[in-house]
């Protein structure tokens, strides 16, 4: 079982209605890609938005594997400055 933290920012929060949540996954390994599919099932309207996903504060490839305790963040386009 994996316990991970999910974070959502900016316009994405208008679909998830939460900034952060902890979820449990009944698996020992899961790729970023598979996680994303699960999240899109939960929040279907996210698929209409543009975002990148960071694993433990780094943008990684979709094949990257998630470990217990990881933090995954959904990041809409940047607008700093």
């Amino acid at each position: 079982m994996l316990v991970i933290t999910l974070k959502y920012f900016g316009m994405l929060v208008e679909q998830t209605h939460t900034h952060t949540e902890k979820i449990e996954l009944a698996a020992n390994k899961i790729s970023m890609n598979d996680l994303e599919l699960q999240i899109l099932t939960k929040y279907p309207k996210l698929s209409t938005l543009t975002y990148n996903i960071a694993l433990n504060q780094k943008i990684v490839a979709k094949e990257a594997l998630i470990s217990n305790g990881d933090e995954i963040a959904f990041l809409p386009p940047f607008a700093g400055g």
Partner: protein
Amino acid sequence: MKKKNVFIQGAITPDFIANSIAKHQSKTTIGAHDIFLGQVRADEIDGKTVTAIEYTAYEEMANTKFDEIRERAFDKFELTCSHIYHSLGAVKAGELCLFVFVSSPRRKEAMKALEYLVETIKAETPIFGKEIFKDETHQWKVNS
């Protein structure tokens, strides 16, 4: 380089900038400072006027990223100092939301470093901006 907190609650004030400049007057190898300030524009979009931008950020990641960007700038250019400050929360039109400050013995190094820093900050740091209109509707800002 120690890890810094880049974020400031609300607008960056001219006094804050003056203080930063004054602190560098004891560093007498500096010949050139170059400063970039981002100011919130009262843009008109489809007949509605922006009155403020409300900034949020993935703060831990952004602070790590800012450190990394500053380190890259020190590797690339001959710099004495480099500082970055960004607002969180509401910043009204006309107020300042970004302050990037580089100092170098030579002006050309300072200018090249400032451009590098500003462009990289815009492209790589997870900061999000909600443009608030006069009628309290909003749209999400996207850097171009």
